[in-house]
């Protein structure tokens, strides 16, 4: 490969990495919120993503709805599902068991296994992808190709983050959420309805994560087994960001996307997960709280 192509490939890798980062941000931002408030590491995150993808597939194929519009419907649907499930999670998290945090973790893992088993029963291993008006559309910036779908996912991630920021810092609901994140008992004593706010937070999280699933179904494809991969990614982005730090997700998501992209291009895709996770461990040795690990 000559030098001109090498430069093109380097720049293309940069764009690929930033756009992968966008998808990781979409996936992780709700996960961070639910940890910050409920102190639950939700292992069902990949399951919600997968179900979001399949729901979008149904909406697109059965009702002919454009995926980028179906995101709002998927968000609303999973917001309600999560809101309904929220009190149960809260109950497990605040139960009188010796280690309610571990109980909650096991509980969410159980939900994940249930979702995975259900999906296998319903769809076997069949992969589904969703066609958008932006599928196959791209911007040519000189030698670099920017897929519009991935760019949209990136913009969506920025919008999710912005929306969440406004909700958390510019509304009474957000004030209650932040109070809860700082001290649940004190927030309760100050008149915050802890159970209700926690349930809504879990709803917002499931809505956001399922919406990320719509983007994933549009860009890649979904099948019942993809959940574990996205659970791992969400977990590692969250750890690198600093568990509970919504702002840190932006930095960590982009860093992870770029690292994976450059490793896959210049060392080999076979080694990308190995090197990415190895680097994460090293980063955590240096900064155990993550890049912005100060909570909400």
């Amino acid at each position: 490969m000559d030098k001109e192509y090498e430069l093109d490939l380097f720049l293309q890798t940069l764009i690929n990495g930033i756009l992968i980062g966008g998808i990781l941000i979409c996936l992780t931002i709700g996960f961070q919120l639910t940890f910050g408030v409920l102190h639950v590491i939700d292992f069902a995150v990949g399951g919600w993503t997968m179900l979001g993808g399949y729901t979008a597939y149904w909406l697109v194929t059965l009702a002919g709805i454009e995926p980028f519009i179906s995101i709002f419907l998927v968000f609303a649907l999973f917001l309600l599902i999560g809101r309904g499930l929220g009190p149960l999670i809260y109950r497990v998290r605040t139960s009188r068991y010796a280690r309610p945090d571990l109980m909650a973790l096991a509980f969410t893992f159980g939900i994940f296994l249930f979702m995975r088993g259900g999906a296998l029963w319903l769809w076997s291993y069949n992969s589904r992808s969703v066609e958008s008006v932006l599928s196959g559309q791209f911007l040519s910036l000189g030698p670099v190709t920017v897929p519009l779908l991935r760019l949209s996912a990136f913009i969506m991630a920025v919008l999710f983050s912005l929306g969440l920021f406004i909700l958390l810092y510019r509304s009474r609901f957000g004030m209650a959420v932040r109070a809860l994140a700082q001290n649940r008992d004190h927030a309760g004593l100050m008149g915050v309805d802890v159970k209700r706010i926690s349930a809504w937070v879990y709803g917002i999280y499931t809505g956001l994560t399922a919406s990320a699933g719509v983007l994933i179904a549009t860009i890649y494809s979904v099948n019942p087994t993809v959940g574990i991969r996205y659970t791992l990614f969400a977990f590692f982005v969250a750890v690198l960001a600093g568990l509970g730090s919504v702002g840190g997700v932006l930095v960590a998501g982009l860093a992870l996307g770029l690292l994976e992209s450059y490793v896959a291009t210049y060392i080999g895709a076979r080694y990308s997960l190995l090197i990415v996770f190895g680097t994460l461990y090293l980063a955590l040795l240096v900064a155990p709280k993550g890049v912005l690990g100060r909570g909400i």
Partner: protein
Amino acid sequence: MSDKFSRRKFLRNSLIGTGAMTLGFPALNVSAQEHKIRCGVVTSLSGANRFGGNLTRRGYDLWAEEINKLGGIEIAGKRYPVEMFYGDAQSRPASGADAAERLIIQDEVDVLFGPYTSGVTLAVQPISQKYRVPMISGSAESPNVWLAKPAFNFGMIPAVDLTTDKSMVVLAEKLGDRAKTASVIGVDEPFSKETAEGFRKGAEEADLEMLSYELFPANSDLSAIVSKLKAANPDIVAVGGHESVFINFVNTAKALNYRPKALIMHYGVTSAAFINETGAESNGILGVSVWTAGLPYKDELFGTASDYSDLSFSRWGTRPDYTEAACSASGLVLQDAARRLGKAPPWDQESRSQLAKAIEETDIETFYGPVGFAKEGSHFHNNTKPVPVVIQIKNGDVVPVAPENAAKGELAYPINEKS
């Protein structure tokens, strides 16, 4: 002599009569009942692979129905109907092994027809060997099945490393001077890796320059791989993987404005799901099939490959793929071997061992193509005779394009031109 009713005489005569009937009944029964050849089928009727498993069942059943219409398998001038018994592997190797043992011990089958997946086949073949029951596998494609050198298992479909190898050679020959370079990628899991290895071997045999060979984990983001392929721009890109990887590859290539000159894949390209999911993007994509209805093969039971396809369509409502065809052809192998064995069923352990030897000597022509099993080497007991057909998706249709004797349409190259 008095005609007076004697209770003692009545009881004595009744006892003698009943005893005679009881003792004589089995003999009468055996002579009245025709013996059937009991065929066990172990396949995935439930679980993740139930769709493919039911395809194998269709293939085996179609053969059984057709041969029974003639009165059964002819052995030494007499016909013996076949009776099918099923064991559900539930898409799990351990359940497949249990099912096989049950079929052999409880149902006393004379012969087994093999599972849908290679994983289940690997679990079942030691059982067939333990009880010396010959097994004809209409579906397994992993080379590992044959590397284990199974004494009693025989595979109808050439292992995937052989088909991808040959298909690359066939494709390169067809393209001639237009193809000089190739890149191969594949998922880093056994089946896909073997597929990719086969493509690489074929590229080397065809003297193509290998620009790159890369394996990656399943569900990877393929943008880095596609970007590299786009920069290198090989004449042929080959992908080893399953349907979801193909869909991801096609979607990612489309998003990054890359259309390979020739894109060849193997398993899953001909599936309706792949064509539906990729839509117009599937146009021009190449695949490998061991069999198509257009091939010039025939036999006495099913007629031509085309006749078989029509028969299957009228029976099941869908056109058969190569797996279904191979399963039906498994029955033809049993017919031929049983005829040469010349022993009436039921077969004891020694007869079954002789039957396995007869299967090993198979050399027949069928609607599915030539059948003959390797007697040594890394593909021991695998039918290595079929030459894979290179197919191309053209407006949603699967069209054979190479080799010449199978071609039903022109190979469109590069695929970004009109297919």
